[in-house]
């Protein structure tokens, strides 16, 4: 007997059953298709686009930097270069020894080191060499070594090597500027990368179709700096010579145009090559000490204390006082530098010439209207000159990362404030940076206008034209023109007859103004000063009749006997002499 009997079922009925059996699956399929293509349309569309579309970031070219070359225009000091990275996939290297030998023969290096890397067959990537020039890369490609590859990468290049290293900074492996101008102007220099979303073939090569989305990269801005490479090179060479001669630890030189605040040179020793920044072990060498290192300047500060006294009319160059040799302040004896004896009728000019601490403390007392005591109004006035007029205790805004503000304690009636201010008059108990000092001396040189020190002279446009950056006046009438003139004459006496006598250059008598400073170094814990250690400085400008440059030399912890006149003034003199020739400044006296 049949399990399933078809007796009594007509043909029509069979057709109906077949139709239902076909219709139901088809209906299901249609419903599914409808769901996928209508309700899930967006999801699958996006997925499809993602399968055959790739996004690329188009890197922007980093801006370049240029410096002055005297009257010969500008020269590049920071450029970009496309170099090659040599890498290996050791898994595919069949002959590590032979391959290593061929590579070493072409690019140099240790054969065994290459062999070790190539022998690690479990590894999929080994870095063999970086920054290979394109001609070497072509030769390596021609060898067709198995498992060896080359990739191009943009590198920052500093063709002048160590020149102005701290001013420039460098760019790290992540493409970010570190230190100097590279860090300060990083946002402008790096530009904005572009975006490309393109349909590609199986090899990943974009196919030119109408719906490729491209946003062009915006290349970084290029700048022309105020640095003159010839002055910078000379300053670095002289600094190195002086540091060697005085067996010092480190030092700096700064040259600035007092009529605009343009920085012509910022030299630091020790230094480094930004092309090999990754080989540096002491990171302190990266910092531009002229802007980032605040220190107690010592007797250089007397020039600015005297400026305050002259400007308010409390003293003149010929005003006199009776020098007691030492003055008691807050129970402590504050004396002139060792060997200076007391004496009556000493003029303010002599105070600067002989660098008398008691003389500038006398000026402080006069500022307060009390010839015998340091008063709050006197301290307030000195603070006003130091901070609000000359700009000490605040950043200048120069285009350098890590600029220090320095510190000037506020006047008060608190215990110890008087002794602090007494010390401040001769540059102890106050911290400043070299760039602040240079800017302040520039105001004296030009008759009372404080310019903002700056490093960027112009922005370089794509068409080669320059958009100049105008000098910025921070404030006018820092001191009156007559006070500036009086102070200038007093400072020339320092050079002609005082501690700066080694800076005197024949033919330029009474045209070089300056002040030495030999400052003790404060202990890091703030409990006093380090025995036997000092920082020597000399700050000056020339010529008095036509100031062309402000020059400051600083030598840290010299190991030879003598004050700043021995450790810094010779370098000041040599640089000054060179600058006279460079700027074609003829002698003013025969």
């Amino acid at each position, binding site marked *: 007997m049949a399990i399933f009997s078809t007796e009594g079922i007509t043909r029509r009925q069979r057709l109906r059953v077949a139709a239902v059996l076909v219709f139901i699956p088809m209906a299901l399929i249609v419903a599914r298709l409808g769901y996928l293509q209508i309700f899930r349309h967006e999801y699958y569309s996006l997925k499809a686009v993602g399968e055959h579309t790739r996004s690329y970031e188009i890197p922007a070219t980093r801006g370049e930097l240029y410096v002055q070359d005297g009257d010969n225009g500008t020269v590049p000091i920071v450029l970009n270069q*496309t170099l090659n990275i040599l890498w290996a996939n050791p898994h595919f290297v069949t002959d590590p020894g032979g391959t290593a030998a061929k590579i070493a023969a072409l690019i140099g290096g240790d054969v065994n080191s290459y062999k070790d890397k190539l022998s690690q067959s479990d590894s999929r990537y080994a870095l063999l060499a970086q920054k290979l020039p394109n001609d070497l890369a072509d030769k390596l490609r021609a060898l067709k070594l198995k498992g060896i590859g080359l990739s191009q990468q943009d590198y920052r290049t500093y063709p002048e090597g160590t020149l102005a290293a701290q001013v420039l900074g460098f760019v790290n492996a992540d493409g970010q500027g570190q230190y100097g101008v590279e860090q300060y102007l990083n946002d402008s220099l790096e530009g904005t990368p572009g975006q490309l979303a393109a349909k590609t073939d199986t090899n990943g090569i974009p196919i*030119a179709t109408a719906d490729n989305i491209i946003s062009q990269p915006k290349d970084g801005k290029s700048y022309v700096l105020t640095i003159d490479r010839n002055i910078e090179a000379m300053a670095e060479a002289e600094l190195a010579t002086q540091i060697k001669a005085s067996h010092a630890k480190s030092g700096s030189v700064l040259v600035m145009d007092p009529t605009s605040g343009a920085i012509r040179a910022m030299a630091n020793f020790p230094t480094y090559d930004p092309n090999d920044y990754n080989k540096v072990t002491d990171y302190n060498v990266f910092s531009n000490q002229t802007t980032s290192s605040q220190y107690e300047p010592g007797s250089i500060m007397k020039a600015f204390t005297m400026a305050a006294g002259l400007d308010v009319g409390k003293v003149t160059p010929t005003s006199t006082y009776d020098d007691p040799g030492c003055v008691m302040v807050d129970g402590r004896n504050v004396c002139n530098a060792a060997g200076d004896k007391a004496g009556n009728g000493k003029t303010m000019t002599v105070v600067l010439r002989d660098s008398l601490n008691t003389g500038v403390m006398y000026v402080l007392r006069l500022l307060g209207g009390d010839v015998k005591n340091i008063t709050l109004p006197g301290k307030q006035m000195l603070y006003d000159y130091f901070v609000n007029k000359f700009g000490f205790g605040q950043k200048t805004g120069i285009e350098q990362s890590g600029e220090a503000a320095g510190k000037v304690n506020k006047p008060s009636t608190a215990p110890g404030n008087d002794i602090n201010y007494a010390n401040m008059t001769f540059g102890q108990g106050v911290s400043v940076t070299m760039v602040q000092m240079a800017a302040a001396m520039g105001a004296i040189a030009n008759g009372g206008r404080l310019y903002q020190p700056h490093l960027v002279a112009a922005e370089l446009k794509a068409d080669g034209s320059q958009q100049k950056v105008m000098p910025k006046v921070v404030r006018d009438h820092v001191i009156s023109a007559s006070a500036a003139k009086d102070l200038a004459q007093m400072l020339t006496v320092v050079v002609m007859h005082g501690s700066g006598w080694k800076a005197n250059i024949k033919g330029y008598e009474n045209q070089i103004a300056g002040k030495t400073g030999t400052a003790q170094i404060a202990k890091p814990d703030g409990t006093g000063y380090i025995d036997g250690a000092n920082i020597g400085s000399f700050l000056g400008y020339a010529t008095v009749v036509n100031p062309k440059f402000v020059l400051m030399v600083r030598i840290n912890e010299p190991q030879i006997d003598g004050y700043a006149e021995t450790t810094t003034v010779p370098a000041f003199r040599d640089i000054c002499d060179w600058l006279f020739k460079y700027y074609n400044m003829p*002698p003013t006296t025969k």
Partner: protein
Amino acid sequence: MSTAIYTARRNQNLYRQPTKFKLGANSATLIIIAIISLLALLYLTQVTKTGVLGYQLSDLSTKRDDIVTQKRDLSVEAARLQSIQTIRNSQTASRMVPVAAVSYASTNN
């Protein structure tokens, strides 16, 4: 003209009947397939052209990048050749002596 011809023409229908062009199902199918194939071929040639252009653009872009790279290399090399360090170490500089005294000529205006 002969009488016979006149007789024949008299019985002719002078109005031509519209020709009934009949296309068979198979012919129509073949023609449609042929047209579709032609259109598909046209589409393929256009898409291929676009793809080829993409490759050409890529080649040109690569060439441009190579030239830009060469220019950069030359700029760097030029900068190195005129660097202070190179000048100092040059044979020309080694034959020079430092400036000693400078004499300035005066002009009477």
